[in-house]
């Protein structure tokens, strides 16, 4: 129980960072974000992404454009806003620190 909980916490902690990173590569569609995250083995189902994207958008980190699609309804393509870029820079730094902390902690454990 506790283990699962911690895992969830850890995953969730980096999920938003990863999403911002993926979007930072350029305008991207939600299902493509999923594809990237699946490749990184971070997220399994799409449904969980939409609430996150909506919240990030509402916090002003993302914006989106409607793009007509040949297969189905128009798609939302997400991009980082200026604020999002700044937040991402902060997070990059934080991640470097975290990675260092984790790396340091793991070292010497054989």
């Amino acid at each position, binding site marked *: 129980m506790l283990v699962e909980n911690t895992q*969830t916490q850890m995953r*969730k902690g980096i999920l938003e960072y990863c999403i911002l990173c993926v979007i930072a590569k350029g305008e991207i569609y939600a299902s493509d974000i999923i594809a990237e995250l699946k490749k990184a083995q971070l997220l399994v*189902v*799409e*449904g*969980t992404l939409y609430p996150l994207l909506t919240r990030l958008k509402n916090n002003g980190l993302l914006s989106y454009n409607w793009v007509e699609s040949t297969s*189905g*309804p128009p798609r939302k393509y997400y991009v980082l806003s200026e604020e999002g870029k700044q937040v991402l820079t902060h997070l990059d730094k934080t991640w470097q620190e975290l990675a260092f902390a984790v790396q340091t902690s793991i070292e010497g454990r054989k």
Partner: protein
Amino acid sequence: MNKTIIININGTVFHIEEQAYELLKEYMTDVKRHFFNSADSLEITTDIENRLAEMLTEILAREGRQAVIDQDVAWVIEQMGSVKDFETAEAEEEPGFIHNEFTTPAGNRRLFRDPEDHLVGGVCSGIANYFDIQAVWIRLFFTVAFVFFGTGLFLYIILWIIVPKAISRADKMAMKGEPLDLQGFKRNFEAELSSVSERIAGLKHDGRPFVYKTRDFVSDFFHHLFVFFGGAGKVLVKLLGIAVIMACVGGIIAVIVGLGATWFFGGDSFSLPDNFFNYEHINQVRAAVALIAIIPFTMIIIVVSSAMFSTAAISRSAGITLLVIWLSSLAMLGYHAARAAAEFKDSASFTQTINLKPSKNQVYYLQLNDAMFLTHDDSVRLQIKDKFRNMILTDDEDRHELEPRSVHIDIERSDVPYPVLVEEFSARGYDYDGALENARNTRYMFVQQDSVLKFDRRLRRLNNRSWHNEEVRLTLRIPLNATVMVNEKINRYISNYMNVYECLPGDDHKSTEMAPFVMTEDGLKCKVGEGIVDATNTIDSMDTNHDGGVDASEILKSTVGAKADTIYIDDTIQTPKPAKKPVVIHRRHRMVN
């Protein structure tokens, strides 16, 4: 072979098999419920729906199929993830909408008022939820309790005040006793904590003073009153509308039947509008009256039904046409009324004198003629000879109540030693000649049979002429010291003051009892102590056979001395069984002798 349904997901149309549709619908309902408390629920669910639509479109294109089957739906749901997955992902993220799932252990119901299923205050459905039965039974119970004892309402209001409303999702789940960990999320410390705070808030809520509850109740009451008029009230309003429409239909039928009756039986009784209008115009007047009465009823029916039941409203031009017809009917009625009124401008009268045979003992019995006078037309119309042979048709004043009194009798002292009857006929008309013509076109039936003087109740207009206030003033001049026997019935027609009941010995008199009055120098005086003859026994024979007046007389001759049966018939003359014995028919049920 499977049945398919056409659905529309945010603008994309799919043919989907029924089973697949059920699956998809269930999934979307779950998703919507899951995000219900989130501020962005609409946006999130729309995103999810759009993506589902896109994936389905891709599958169909790839597989070259036209209809979505349940495997497709299962696959896209798997891609999208179940509600369970969402909860796992969000467990930490949004404790705000999860914490209240833990307030009550599963299966333990609490009594709340149900704000989602209510007719008035949600009390009944709340109770029903508590006992896990259908709300309709509780509602039925309250209705019955209200109808029979009036206690239902009282009880309801008390429960409304006392029982809290299920506001939060937790309340609603507790009310329905849903197992709160149904959707498989995990309890954690924070959730427990917030559930504790929820409980504390709940305690505060439950423990609020009565005053606050009452205040809540009042605001609730008006809210629900509003809802009531939107819901159950609509039914009431519709019932009211139906009642109004029925009343109007009834009004129309009454007008048609009423006018139809005067059309068929016109002239038989004194009724508006017939007796005031010239016969050649009577149908115009009837039509005008019918339209004046029926058009507003029709309009009310159309307006009410279009407002209540959204049936087609009347078009503007049709409405204006009806209004114009109504106004012209009004104008026509006014025109005829004015013409009828003009018929009363002048008056005329003429007098004729009849010398009566003096009776042997100078006693005269004054009576109303009870035998009905029938003109030749009447007797043909009513088939008197066939249906009423050997019967007496009696007249009765009741049926002429509506008609103004047309007969007045004065009793004066005669200068000559025999009685004299002076008949003064008067009427009104457009001018003097017309008035005189009207006065002449009347007939008054007066009959002398030895000492019995029979007066008819009415002055009759001939040829179905319209009414022009025709009157006859009868002056009966009797010699000095002659006696007149008068009963209360005829006294009503006599202008002289005669107190018949006081002149009779004893109390408790019938209107047929006859009192003697003697003519003195000072007019009529009650005659006391002389032999008073009960005149009613002597009056069996009568002769109403004045020129053309038919048949009652023939019948009468055979009734003399015979014991007559009595048959009661209504105003509408029915056909009695052929009687061997002579029979007296009373109109209405008034005993004559």
